[in-house]
């Protein structure tokens, strides 16, 4: 059960790395190394997705954390589905960019980021569950605690009505509006970007076919035929280089921009969920106010008690939420910046490599005697 321990040394967020992943049937096991902020000694633990899920649930159900509902919880990626049980198409639909990349590389990166975000959070980093996650030799997920009792965003009519409930605070109303609008746009952008990546991969495959076909043009009967075969082989090499370029470019896309867009989308959802929790508390508060006003004398004291408690909870949540939102805005810009810079640098480097390679081919072909 999660409760805060101020004295336990916390894990250094930057030191967290997922170094390895092994697959045994349907189960994926992640090797995670980390260091405590107080020492340089590294610790390595092995965790499955159940353990991550346990961690997230533990964080969500912490008691004794004032205004916990106002925290924007770092989003945990969905449960991984080994390729034995799911087709590529289904995986793409479920995970988007996280389904791409060799050997779960991108998915691991997303999990790693999740752990780093939790460890860097002022409130969540103090959770006992977190330190247990990083140090316990046993798999913590085996002992399931109580599940988070928070209202998750669902599409039930009741919930949707609450989502649109007018706010009492201009700051929060504006945050809710922009959140809704922006999260739609980011979702669309993520999908469109994914489409471009998939098409680049198709192009790589098509180049592969073309290159292979050129190899088959083989004839050594006379000098002209020999020369023609040589030319076709040359072209085959060139097309192969085009293919490799597409693969590199799409890898760059996935590992930086793709991951960034995916992370941004999921984090916006997390923010939306937090705002919704607060809105639900607001609805609860307004109901408590009404009950208190209309209460018969014999119930009045109780209702006023409820109203006061609810008001206090709501204020706590709002104050935590405000800080969280400000932190969120700062962090998100910084994260996006890093990914955009990384993406740009990678694509620039690839373009420079490829340009040099094509130029070499060009010189060779110009000197080719026919």
């Amino acid at each position, binding site marked *: 059960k999660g409760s805060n321990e101020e004295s336990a040394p916390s894990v250094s967020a930057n030191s967290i790395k997922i170094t390895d992943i092994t697959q045994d049937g349907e189960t994926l096991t992640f090797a995670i190394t980390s260091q405590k902020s107080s020492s340089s000694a590294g610790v390595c633990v092995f965790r499955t997705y159940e353990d991550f899920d346990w961690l997230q649930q533990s964080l969500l159900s912490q008691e004794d954390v004032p205004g916990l509902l106002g925290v924007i919880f770092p989003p945990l990626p969905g449960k991984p589905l080994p390729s034995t049980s799911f087709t590529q198409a289904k995986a793409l639909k479920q995970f988007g960019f996280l389904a791409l990349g060799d050997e779960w590389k991108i998915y691991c990166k997303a999990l790693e980021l999740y752990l780093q975000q939790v460890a860097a959070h002022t409130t969540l980093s103090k959770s006992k569950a977190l330190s247990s996650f990083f140090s316990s030799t046993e798999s913590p997920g085996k002992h399931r605690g109580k599940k988070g009792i928070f209202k998750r965003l669902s599409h039930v009519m009741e919930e949707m009505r609450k989502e649109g409930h007018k706010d009492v605070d201009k700051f929060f109303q504006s945050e809710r509006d922009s959140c809704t609008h922006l999260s739609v746009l980011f979702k669309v952008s993520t999908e469109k970007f994914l489409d471009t990546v998939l098409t680049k991969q*198709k192009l790589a495959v098509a180049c592969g*076919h*073309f290159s292979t076909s050129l190899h*088959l043009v083989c*004839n050594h009967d006379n000098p002209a035929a020999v020369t023609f075969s040589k030319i076709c082989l040359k072209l085959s090499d060139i097309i192969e280089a085009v293919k490799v370029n597409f693969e590199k470019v799409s890898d760059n896309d996935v590992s930086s921009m793709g991951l960034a867009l995916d992370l941004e989308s999921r984090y916006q959802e997390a923010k939306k969920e937090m705002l919704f929790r607060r809105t639900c508390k607001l609805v609860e508060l307004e109901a408590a106010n009404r009950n208190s006003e209309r209460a018969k004398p014999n119930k009045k004291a109780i209702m006023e008690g409820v109203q006061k408690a609810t008001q206090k909870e709501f204020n706590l949540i709002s104050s935590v939420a405000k800080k969280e939102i400000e932190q969120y805005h700062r962090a998100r810009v910084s994260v996006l910046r890093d990914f955009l810079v990384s993406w740009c640098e990678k694509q620039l480097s690839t373009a420079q490599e490829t*340009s040099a390679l094509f130029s070499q081919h060009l010189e060779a072909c110009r000197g080719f005697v026919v």
Partner: protein
Amino acid sequence: MPYKTLILCSKICDGMNAYMAYKVTTKTSLNLFNRNEFTVKRRFSDFLGLHSKLASKYLHIGYIVPPAPEKSIVGMTKVKVGKEDLSSAEFVEKRRSALERYLMRTVNHPALLKDPDVIQFLESTELPRAVSTQALSGAGILRMVNKAAEAVNKMTIKMNESDAWFEEKQQQFENLDVQLRKLHASVESLVCHRKELSVNTASFAKSAAMLGNSEDHTALSRALSQLAEVEEKIDQLHQEQAYADFYLFSELLGDYVRLITAGVFDHRMKTWSKWQDAQVMLQRKREAEAKLQYANKPDKLQQAKEEIKEWEAKVQQGERDFEQISKNIRREVGRFEKQRVKDFKVVIIKYLESLVHTQQQLIKYWEAFLPEAKAIA
């Protein structure tokens, strides 16, 4: 004998009339022509007319006559890449390029270049209107007719191939046809995907622009808008590259497939068959004359002797024709094989130049974007 003849085709819309005409400009240093540079106006049907004349003159003596430009723009794999809109810019450009390549191939052929029909086509201001295009629609009908005749003949002709070269060459050409078609299909697939990528990139660019507009953080907003612009430019590059894929490779491969299905080997078989038939006929005539020796019909005998002379001449002609077409084909195939290497080399170099250009543009765009991304704070 080095010379330079360059033909440029550009379209002119004849405002008053409903047809498309093409400006054919020839630049040459050859004495065959009256001037060094001249321009004429030609319609598509004129090109078909020229091809029809050349085919009827040269195919049957073993020249590889460049096939007429295709009437339809539907690729050989019958994949419709865009609507078949006769007035669309893409269609006109495809046709213009095909006509230009057709003429260049024709004048690169040393014998065809000297042909009076070719010279007239390039030089004369007025050309007698080609007979209805239905009758001349491209290599299509010509091939159909040839193939029909060949199909019949193939069933009846069993040629004693004394020359292994022809048997091997025919086999090679058949293999080449298969290989080229496969390559052509690969390239069409490439072109198709690149066009798809262009569409996807443009779509992503739009969504990034919308993000830029809605984003509150100023520097991030600007970076996203810049990103949208970069993606739009990259989309442009994809389109240009798709054109290069298509006009360089797809069309080249298509041309070559059409070139080698022109059917010279079948004409040689027909020529051989004609020679054999003449020999059979000569034999019959000799037998008939021998019979008449004892029939005491002096008129008929005289006629028989004359017929023998006639068929002896035909046999000799048949043998000469066969030797000539065999010689021509050997020479044509040699020329074809040399030309093929040159054509491919030229195309590959152009393609590499386009690839290098694309990468250098990309480098420029990314270099320009990097400071924008770094400026986000």
